[in-house]
């Protein structure tokens, strides 16, 4: 049953570039139908290499990948029909209009009469008004949107978005986030890479942490965030506490003298909120003298993981 839901299986994938740089090291990963999977890692971690190999832009040194049960090398034609890739680097064909660019891409996928598919795709991305604009005259954000149109025109089941919001303004970022939600609602499986924890937190159902070519953790978002928190809140108390209050325990709290540090979470079901914690402190007549708030960075998570403080 679980196997039926598996759309991508990566097994023992390694990639060693000429000169010996190991971009991927024995990566194994499974992506489930209909999920948004966030591949989270710092620059140079191997995110792009991984999705480029799945999409056919790069060759693996060893290991295997199957997409919808088909091998990415042997059955590449069927696999590529199932995949849309939006690359990180913005590209645009300067010679053609938006409509032509997307129609040509549809042609590469063997779509005989691309008109309707192009129109549907451009409209869904609010690009229809720009259909006759030349690729040369598009703004960076528009180019990004045209790239998404190219990736979607053949209606793939699986969409890869490589750092979709890198270098885009807030408005476009919000648009993209909304679009990803809509695509998920239409049943697409989406794999996005990002180095923003916030983005993965907003969009992903599951998060894979990748560092130096290795997947170091794959976990559903809620439990990952519960473990690490979006931010750490330090409460300076007016007296030392003997033991952690119950809410603090669940928030991975730590006591050091008068300071209580907990993970701060937003909207994670079944997890106590800061308000619950404060209520428990008030019950014990403990007053808060000062509060400091530090957003959890990806680096914090890596540091904690590498220090082995968290084991699950």
């Amino acid at each position, binding site marked *: 049953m679980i196997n039926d839901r598996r759309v991508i299986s990566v097994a023992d994938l390694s990639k060693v*570039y000429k000169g010996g740089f190991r971009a991927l090291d024995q990566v194994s990963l499974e992506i489930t139908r209909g999920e948004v999977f966030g591949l989270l890692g710092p620059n140079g971690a191997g995110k792009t290499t991984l999705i*480029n190999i799945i*999409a*056919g*832009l*790069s*060759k693996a040194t060893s290991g295997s990948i199957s997409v919808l049960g088909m091998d990415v090398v042997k059955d*590449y*034609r*069927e696999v*590529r*029909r199932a*995949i849309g*890739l939006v*690359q990180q*680097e*913005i*590209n*645009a*064909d*300067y*010679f*053609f209009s938006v409509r*032509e660019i997307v129609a*040509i*891409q*549809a*042609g*590469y*996928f*063997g*779509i*005989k009469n691309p008109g309707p598919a192009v129109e549907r795709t451009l409209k869904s991305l609010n690009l229809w008004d720009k259909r006759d604009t030349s690729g040369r005259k598009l703004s960076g954000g528009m180019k990004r949107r045209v790239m998404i149109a*190219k990736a979607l025109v053949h209606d793939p089941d699986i969409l890869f978005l490589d750092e979709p919001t890198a270098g885009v303004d807030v408005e476009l970022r919000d648009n993209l986030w909304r679009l990803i939600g809509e695509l998920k609602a239409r049943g697409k499986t989406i794999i996005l890479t990002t180095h923003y924890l916030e983005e993965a937190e907003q969009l992903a159902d599951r998060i894979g942490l990748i560092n130096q070519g290795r997947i170091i953790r794959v976990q559903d978002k809620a439990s990952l965030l519960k473990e690490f928190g979006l931010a750490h809140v330090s409460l300076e108390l007016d007296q030392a506490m003997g033991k952690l209050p119950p809410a603090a325990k669940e928030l991975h709290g730590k006591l050091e003298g008068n300071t209580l540090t907990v993970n701060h979470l937003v909207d994670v079901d079944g997890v106590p909120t800061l308000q619950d914690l404060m209520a428990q402190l008030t019950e014990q007549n403990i007053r808060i003298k000062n509060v400091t708030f530090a957003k959890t960075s990806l680096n914090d998570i890596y540091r904690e993981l590498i220090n082995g403080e968290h084991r699950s």
Partner: protein
Amino acid sequence: MNWTAIWALTWKELKRFIKVPGQTLGAPVVTTFLYFVVFSLSLGRGMIEIQGVSYTEFIMPGLIMMSVMTGALSSVSSALMLSKIMGTLSDLLVSPMTYLEMILGFSLSSVIRSMVTAALIYGTALFFVPFKVEHPIYLLVYLVIVAFAFSVAGLIIGIWADTFEQVSIFPTFLITPLSFLGGIFYSIEVLPAVLQTVSRLNPLLYMINGLRYGFYGVSDVDPTLAFIVGSVFLLVLSLVIWRLFSTGYKIKT
């Protein structure tokens, strides 16, 4: 074979070509027109005849062939180079197209383009020379084979090159000199024996003379041999490009 995909690529490249007509159609026609004017005024005027045709007629096939070879090679190599620079080559690589389909898509556009240019040059030449085609089928088939071969050569260069400078080396430093030395303007019969032998090592000699045979039935080389040279040229280059694509040379990291 997915002809829809091949045609999408061919059409794209043709359209790019139509969008800059001055560069792609105007330039070769003007250049050839100048050759005709200069050579027929200075040398031609019906006085000089080579192998039974007037001098102006004699140089016409070679000029067409040079333009076809240069055009076929340059258009594909710069198309590929542009798509590398604009980053659009990956759009092709993530598609389900096979390498053969990609090679055909690029080459077909270039062959079609070369045929159009050849027709335009011939049309221009008709102001100077009478209409005369002795072996039309040989001429057409041969022109297509050579255009195809040079398109494939353009693909090889486009993949190999990292800069436009590298792309421009071949037409300027290889095709033009080898065409001039390949008997566009003279019959190698007028050369000393040693230079005749050396000339016979130049594959472009066969291509130029092959086309001249197609037009007038005259040639410095055996037309069958010319046909074989053109075909072998196409075959060898096709094997090279097939190898480059299938190993992902400079295309896939």
